[in-house]
């Protein structure tokens, strides 16, 4: 990459610090200590999907280094590096225009993300499209040599998750998934508190979340001229355009967004997987029950209860809509960790509202205790890892494991039956239809 051709002042300082401290300087010294990095030392970002969530990752040309979004976590001790948004892409040109104005300067604008991936000026990409594009774009970005920050849930099928892990591994790319809860201070405190045994052995985690909407009956229509609807659909099965299915409304279709469990579940269960030290573990059975909307355009669960059983170590994870909220902390969603010596609540799990109880926030890890990774923020951690080539806090392998929980929960809910799961081979046991649904053939030219 261009940034490695010369030794910049920043690189020199980093190397000097690394030589003396054994770590890279940008891990321990706030960016503000240094002068602005040389242009060749900046990371040039491309942004794919800039209509909603994706706007939070943009780096405006003016105003200096800023946090793109406070809900990306961190303890406030760091600011993001003054990197640049050099290329923007969206299937909807109204999004492109707004984002270009917001960024300022002269970012390159694309409606076809492959052109952005071909752009040699782009070092890394943020992918914040609807879910059905996440995996394929992440795989293709790795093939093009880009490091990737991809929004959660990482993938729509188990097969997609496997392809993402394989692509990141094949090209040695850094892939961070946007379950930023692990970078939230409250989650860190809860993780430290629980992993150091303060509530004893945890055998059960129960999540709660309010219900999904049902939707009305809005007629299908012609896509607006600004939207390349075929590109928006991409690898997903064709459905006629409907404004209540598109953009942020994709969330309420099982085939596209998967409802609350794939949205907030990918945050709340990411923290659970982290605290339970289960990034390399998977459930052995999944039992999802509930009710879809009785009428209307959407088909994701309104009421839902999914029980995941884990073995070695044995524990149970429950995703419930509405479930039983915490008595200790009021919040619309979160999780309670049930130990044999007490319990602890972590609320939200995705943003600024993430919180935990005072005893965890005040807890000091004793000498010799377990020290969970203390993320400087999901965005900052991503930037650090682009430089260090270390594994990020919400790395792709962990991210797809979380997505599998969401996918399997929805699958059991939709099929209305419990099934057994092999967390090593990643297959459903003794259920032909469920096993077929672990993959999804692409559409047209969009194939894994």
């Amino acid at each position, binding site marked *: 990459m261009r940034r*490695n051709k010369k030794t910049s002042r920043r690189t020199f300082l980093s190397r000097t610090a690394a030589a003396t401290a054994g770590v890279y300087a940008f891990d321990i010294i706030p960016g503000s200590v240094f002068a602005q990095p040389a242009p060749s030392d900046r990371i040039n970002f491309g942004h794919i999907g800039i209509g909603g969530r994706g706007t939070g990752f943009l780096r405006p040309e003016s105003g200096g280094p800023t946090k793109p979004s406070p809900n990306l976590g961190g303890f406030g001790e760091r600011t993001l590096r003054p990197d640049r948004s050099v290329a923007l892409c969206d299937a909807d040109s109204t999004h492109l225009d707004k984002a270009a104005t917001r960024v300022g300067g002269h970012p390159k604008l694309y409606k076809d993300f492959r052109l952005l991936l071909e752009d040699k000026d782009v070092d890394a990409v943020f992918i914040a499209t609807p879910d059905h594009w996440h995996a394929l774009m992440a795989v293709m970005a790795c093939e093009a040599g880009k490091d990737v920050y991809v929004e959660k849930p990482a993938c729509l099928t188990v097969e997609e998750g496997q392809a993402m892990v394989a692509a990141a591994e*094949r090209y040695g790319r850094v892939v961070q998934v946007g379950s930023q809860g692990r970078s939230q201070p409250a989650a860190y405190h809860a993780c430290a508190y629980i992993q150091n045994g303060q509530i004893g052995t945890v055998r059960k985690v129960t999540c709660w979340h309010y219900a999904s909407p049902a939707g009305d009956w809005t007629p299908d229509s012609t896509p607006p001229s600004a939207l390349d609807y075929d590109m928006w659909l991409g690898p997903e099965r064709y459905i006629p355009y409907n404004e209540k299915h598109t953009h942020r409304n994709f969330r309420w279709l099982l085939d596209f967004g998967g409802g609350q469990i794939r949205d907030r579940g990918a945050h709340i269960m990411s923290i659970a997987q982290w605290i339970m030290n289960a990034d390399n573990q998977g459930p052995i059975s999944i039992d999802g029950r509930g009710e879809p909307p*009785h*009428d209307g355009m959407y088909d994701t669960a309104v009421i839902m209860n999914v029980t995941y059983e884990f073995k070695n170590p044995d524990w149970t994870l429950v995703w419930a809509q509405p479930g039983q909220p915490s008595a200790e902390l009021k919040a619309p969603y979160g999780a309670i960790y049930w130990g044999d010596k007490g319990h602890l609540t972590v609320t939200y799990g995705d943003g600024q509202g993430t919180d935990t109880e005072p005893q965890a926030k005040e807890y000091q890890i004793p000498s010799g205790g377990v020290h969970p990774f203390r993320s400087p923020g999901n965005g900052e951690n991503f930037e650090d890892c682009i430089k260090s*080539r270390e594994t990020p806090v919400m790395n792709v392998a962990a991210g797809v494991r979380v997505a599998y929980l969401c996918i399997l929960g929805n699958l059991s809910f939709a099929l209305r039956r419990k099934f057994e799961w092999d967390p090593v081979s990643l297959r459903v046991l003794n259920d032909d239809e*469920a096993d077929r*649904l672990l*993959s999804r*053939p*692409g559409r047209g030219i969009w194939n894994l």
Partner: protein
Amino acid sequence: MNPASDKFLADIGNHDVEVRYAAWRAAGSEDPEVIAPLGKLMGADDPGVRNAATQALKTIVDSVGKQPVGEKRAAVIQQFIALTANGHPAWVRTIALRDLSLIGGDETVPAAAKLLTDADLQEEAVFCLERIPGDASIAALIAAYPHVGDSFKPRVLAAFGHRRAAQAVDLCVAAMASSNLDIAIAGMKAAGRIGIKPSGEIKLPDYKSLSDWQKTEYDDSLLRYADSVHDIHIYRAFLERPEEHLQCAAIIGLAKIHTPEAVSLISPKLKSPNRTVRITAQKALA
């Protein structure tokens, strides 16, 4: 039509949302004879009725989806195959193909294969066949390949790659020699995913003629192939490429081979001017 089926269909068409809901949620216990009338109800004026009919069909599929065999499953499949036939609206045939992709077996293959040359339904037909396990679905795609238009050939080739269809590797390699670069690259992608050596000679597409993205797909396909057959010559070539990620991929691939020759190829990269390449080499040799 038995009286229970009549009652069920009347409930699906009922104006009351809750009556419809109760009916489609319980559709798994209905006689498969309701499938054809449900196809008709998918064309009802009331969107709630259309939705109830579609959900009922899916519920019936799910009710027989667990076990790969069974008398009721066979009957359900036959009813869905009938819905794919000419004369039904395209959307009904589409939904039937999607539902069949979840439960269909060899008996479904001829009906789906027949639609591979139908411009309106070929995408749904290949989707259905791609998901049906076994050799018959792949054999049908191989047989249909010469007869589909050039614009659809890449989609069929993608199905071979997705299925890792060893029996299609020679066809994919032949496609790589096409003067149509979309077909040639699709053949290369599929062959790279299948990842076995073909019986004949490989003629790669002309690299210089490719678009930038096609070049990316070309490189990726070669690397996937190398990963599958542990081809050290391919990795050696990629080590000489200027692109950082291609050098990294070669290093990572060589590390998996882990022979003295592979180690000797990686070692010089410890002094690469590119920091990411150096780190990748360090990790590979650690």
